[in-house]
């Protein structure tokens, strides 16, 4: 954000705004700091002084034990594959469909678009039970593809909505120019639009990718094998665990930490692309 726009406030009160914002942000972040902190504490410290925020006895033990007990590498891989596959499907099918809808001057396709967008309001619970049987019938239970298809079916309406809004804001001249040069529609899609979609794709990855990575409901119903478990599912079986001995606390915090860190890092990497995309597309929908 390079603009110096102020919303009309004078520069003096910018300090005031910053003070308030810092306070609010600190308050908001506190629970996270609590976890970060306790993930590196010796177990006894967690119990004895759970609310002391500065680790007087730091250790990597909790994190390492959680890592092993959760079988982290495999579970991470599962989450990664489901994430990648779902995003790939959403981005490719979604942008293609949005392109088709935006480019066609067809009443039919517009009607299809309206129906598709309406589906954003439908709750997943409605499809939940029959989906189990569908997946079983297609032999897609406990599979990366099956889980990814469920996510795709669920989130494509929203993704198409985002892409369509964005594509509609692209000046028609661009496309006309391409046509004059003899580009077929698909060529036009590939060479002109795809490069333009970078920013909105970043938006899609954050708005839908993050919920997919963190989702609990779908894995609960599509995955029954431990080797196929995703991070949220694995964490759930951990924390709901009826641990009686003091050793469980460190596993709880350690595992919470290692489950949350990857996505935080990825966000920091992708976040620059986000606002640009949202500005262009989402609001005009």
């Amino acid at each position, binding site marked *: 954000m390079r603009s110096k726009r102020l919303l009309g406030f004078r520069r003096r009160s910018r300090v005031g705004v910053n003070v308030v914002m810092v306070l*609010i942000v600190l308050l*908001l972040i506190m629970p996270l700091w609590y*976890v970060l902190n306790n993930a590196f504490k010796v177990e006894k410290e967690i119990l004895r002084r759970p609310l002391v925020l500065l680790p007087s006895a730091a250790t990597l033990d909790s994190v390492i034990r959680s890592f092993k007990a959760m079988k982290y590498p495999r579970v991470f891989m599962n989450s990664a594959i489901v994430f990648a596959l779902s995003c790939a499907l959403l981005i490719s099918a979604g942008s293609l469909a949005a392109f088709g809808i935006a480019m066609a001057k067809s009443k039919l396709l517009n009607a299809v678009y309206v129906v598709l967008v309406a589906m954003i309001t439908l709750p997943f619970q*409605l499809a939940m*039970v*029959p989906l189990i049987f569908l997946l079983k019938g297609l032999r897609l239970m406990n599979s990366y593809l099956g889980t990814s298809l*469920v996510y*795709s079916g669920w989130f*494509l309406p929203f993704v198409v909505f985002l892409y369509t809004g964005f594509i509609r804001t692209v000046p028609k001249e661009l496309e006309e120019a391409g046509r004059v040069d003899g580009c077929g529609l698909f060529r036009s899609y590939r060479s002109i639009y795809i490069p333009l979609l970078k920013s909105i794709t970043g938006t899609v990855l954050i708005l839908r990718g993050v919920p997919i990575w963190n989702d609990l409901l779908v894995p609960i119903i599509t995955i029954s094998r431990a080797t196929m478990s995703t991070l949220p599912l694995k964490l759930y079986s951990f924390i709901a665990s009826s641990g009686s001995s003091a050793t469980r606390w460190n596993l709880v915090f350690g595992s919470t930490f290692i489950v949350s860190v990857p996505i935080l890092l990825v966000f920091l990497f992708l976040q620059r692309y986000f606002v640009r995309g949202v500005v262009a597309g989402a609001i005009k929908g």
Partner: protein
Amino acid sequence: MGLAGLSQVQRRQLVCFLFTLPALAIVFVFFLFPMLRALLFSFTNWDGIARTYRWIGLKNFQTVVSDSSFKQIVFNTLYLTIIYVPVLNVVALLLAVGVYNAGKAGNVYKAMLFFPNLLSMTVIGLIWNIIYRYNGLFNQFLKIVGLKVLVQDWLGQVNTVLPAMSVTIIWFAVGYYLLIYLAGLNTVPVEIYESAEVEGVSGWQKLVRITIPLIAPSITINAVLSTIGIVTLFDLPFVLTRGGPGFKSQTIAMHVYAYAFQQLRTSYALALAVILGAFAILITALQLRFLRRREEVIL
């Protein structure tokens, strides 16, 4: 023009249609079709396992609606919708204004406010369960700032469990909606504010009279999205309170799961899911009508 021109248009439309096919196919097979089946089966007595079933009309719906917990879960869902959506949006908007005005540091605030949104609901449920415990962070904090009289069992009392849960949800979601509001704020031309400043309009009035009307589309989107989000909320109450105490924090979405996997009553689960779907559509439609009309008036 002529024949050549016509078929080119038709060819174009055909190609466009083909482009939409993969997405439509996936959505139909993995979303729409199961939903239609759910709708169909909600009128039968299929229990999820047996091979045969009978049509029984509205009996499932009757049973579900007359269940003693039904009123409570509908109330809970409504409560969350009516309280959470406005509060969330007001908070998100104010924070967006704050970030907007904070200058360069705004980017940092924006990112950090979004952090909670990056966590899995299991993580959030766990953290906040620990915070809300009687000996947890929140009560400790109250004691430190001298508000010991407010110390209570936040998640175990009937009148505090829903507000407490709402705070958690807002904590989680605010960053998300803030980003959308921020984008909306960025579309407002600076000149408008500058000329308002010249005319001596106060800060508050600028917000209410100028900003809000001009970002109406963002408000609409956020209202709809946050409503859908809260209506289908499952993960958080499931992990935070397990719907308790009793059914005081049970949402409709949770109850569908309960019917299906705890009470092993597939047909009731489907009926309730249909009710949930109808509810979601109704609320969204109402919202859109209300908000779109205001948008048109303003713009």
